[in-house]
């Protein structure tokens, strides 16, 4: 079924070039670290939300203001290039893997909220450093003869697989994240059952560190900007297209990643929404593996799909209860488009050349993306949960979601136009 000739990616080529163990090490780390990032991004906002609540109601103000200060972490990825210049890009890559793996392990101990939020903030920030250094080294690695399209698709496949694993974990836990559904033991033992996830987390962290130490690919460093023609480099303003990454996170982590939310908006069954969401993600993975890169980067097709996505979002948000399962199907189709948009933006991130060095480009864009994600999330919370605090925001929740969909579509469109112009040149 998975014969390489049928697919636009050759795992055999990557495996042959990297050798078996480094290939598995790279794939495992990329998937698992992305999974930790997804879990941290989900845990971070509730932690900050609780802290905001305490500050508003004047309880433990100092401690909770300290949690709010963790928002500064989102600037950290933007410092990656500076750190790389001081200690070396490979060292930053390896250290970031260790920090993420250990932080996630500590989170599994159910520490107090302040530590949980700080640790999830650290994972988000350090993942920005990991992904920018990894993509730079992976794309520029001169020690192997792996095609660029294979490299990009490998990243896309791994990131989407992390989302799929996240669905798997939440399905087992009946959608309670991070902790698995514990067996019904007596009240005296519940505090032991909450540590069940540790049984999985300890080997995951151990494997991340072990595989990185022994088998993570030894990339060859290539100097950064000088090999490109200066006229090809994009100005800083184009980096705003990566606000789209922030909008992708906003749409997913506020609504579309949760089958419960889809079911709630449409008055349908959680189970059906969960199955359809997983099918949508599997379909996206299949499209990424099967469809040729140039077809995925087709501007006309992208405009049509994104229009469909925005219309579906409107139907879902404004007529979800009336349309029930039609709205669920529409939103699951939109989920495929949104994941494909994410793939397009990420692959663009790997290929496009800005006036900055590559590490700086990716890390800056990661910081911009997460900042816009937080900004839109705050707007959304103020216009929904906390609409009673500032009544002027009331009723704007769905409009903010649609706006995020439009910004994501525009980002992808600009990204594809830049790509097309580059190819024409």
């Amino acid at each position, binding site marked *: *079924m998975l014969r390489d000739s049928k697919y636009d990616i050759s795992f055999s080529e990557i495996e042959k070039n990297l050798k078996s163990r480094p290939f598995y090490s790279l794939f495992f780390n990329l998937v698992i670290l992305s999974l930790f990032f997804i879990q941290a991004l989900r845990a971070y906002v*509730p932690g900050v939300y609780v802290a905001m609540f305490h500050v508003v109601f004047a309880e433990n103000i100092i401690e909770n203001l300290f949690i709010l200060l963790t928002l500064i972490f989102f600037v950290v990825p933007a410092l990656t290039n500076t750190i790389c210049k001081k200690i070396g890009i490979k060292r930053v890559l390896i250290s970031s893997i260790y920090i993420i793996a250990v932080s996630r392990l500590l989170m599994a101990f159910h520490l107090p909220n302040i530590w949980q939020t700080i640790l999830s903030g650290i994972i988000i920030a350090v993942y920005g450093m990991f992904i920018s250094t990894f993509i730079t080294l992976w794309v520029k690695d001169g020690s192997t003869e792996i095609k660029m399209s294979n490299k990009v698709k490998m990243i896309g496949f791994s990131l989407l697989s992390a989302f799929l694993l996240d669905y798997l974990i939440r399905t087992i836990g009946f959608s309670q994240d991070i902790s698995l559904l514990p067996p019904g033991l007596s009240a005296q033992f519940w505090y032991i059952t909450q540590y069940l996830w540790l049984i999985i987390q300890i080997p995951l962290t151990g494997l991340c560190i072990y595989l990185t130490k022994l088998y993570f690919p030894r990339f060859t460093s290539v100097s950064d900007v000088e090999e490109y023609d200066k006229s090809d480099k994009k100005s800083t303003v184009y980096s705003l297209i990566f606000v789209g990454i922030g909008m992708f996170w906003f749409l997913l982590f506020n609504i579309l990643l949760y089958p419960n939310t889809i079911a709630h908006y449409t008055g349908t069954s959680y*189970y059906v929404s969960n199955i359809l969401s997983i099918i949508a993600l599997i379909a996206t993975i299949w499209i990424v593996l099967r469809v040729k890169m140039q077809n995925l980067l087709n501007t006309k097709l992208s405009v049509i799909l994104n229009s469909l996505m925005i219309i579906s979002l409107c139907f879902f948000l404004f007529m979800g209860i009336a349309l029930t399962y039609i709205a669920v199907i529409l939103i699951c189709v939109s989920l495929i488009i949104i994941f494909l948009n994410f793939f397009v933006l990420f692959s663009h991130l790997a290929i496009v050349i800005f006036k900055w060095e590559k590490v700086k480009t990716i890390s800056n864009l990661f910081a911009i993306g997460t900042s816009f994600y937080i900004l839109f999330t705050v707007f959304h919370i103020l216009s929904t949960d906390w609409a009673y605090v500032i009544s002027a925001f009331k009723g704007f929740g769905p409009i903010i979601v649609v706006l995020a969909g439009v910004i994501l579509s525009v980002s992808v469109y600009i990204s594809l136009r830049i790509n097309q112009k580059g190819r024409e040149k």
Partner: protein
Amino acid sequence: MNKRLKIVLITMVVSPLILSVITFGIAEFPRETSPKSEITFMTYNIHFGQGMDDLLNLERIAQNILIDDPDIIGLQEVEVGRITSQGIDMAFWLAKRLGMKYYYSNPMNNKHVMGNAILSKYPIVLSNSYDLPSDLQERVFIHCVIEVSPSLTIDAFCTHIGIRTENKSAQIDFLLEKITEVSTSSKQVLMGDFNLQNDTLEIANVLTYFNDTADEFGASFQASIDYIFAVGYQDVIDYHVITDMLVNIDSPAEFGSDHLPVVSIIDFS
């Protein structure tokens, strides 16, 4: 592609789908409960599933509830699909965990805010929700008709009254008016977080219609703002507040919420 890699990739991609189908298949195993006339009620404000340590842990809430294993539960501050609680459907999760039927609703004019839920071991034959008049945060009260046996049907109500003083009287008036209008039997139980002490005019207003099930059980819980009111019953067999979740352990981590579960055992024979 080698065979080993193929197996790894296919397993990774397909297993979530298989599991989601399995969970769908095993979702509706009904737990049979024999009819009885002494029904245990519980009201519990679960504070979005977050305990005194600010950590979200629904299993801890489930364990707090299981101490008394109630037949009918009224839950307040229940969230569904919000980013602030990691997208969980709390009513659904707890109902599946405890093997109960459930009805959940949040205010019709703001689907994003917290709501109330009623969980029951017995079939819920009718359910509805009503938005309370609110000028601050939207509030709701819900109604379920629960069929304990062919000869015993109970109207269970669950509410969460607002914080602002000017809202409370209007909300209580609306609540009592609606209960009179929609009740299907003479056996009615009103549970909830009223945000009111029991010496207030609003609670006095409720007591013109209902009896406070705490009345015969001393004054030690008079400061509570969580109530179980009832009418049409034979006797209140027991009333208590669960204050110790774990024997011999004294830690804030044992409390699943910033409220305590209130329990009444009521005889409807």
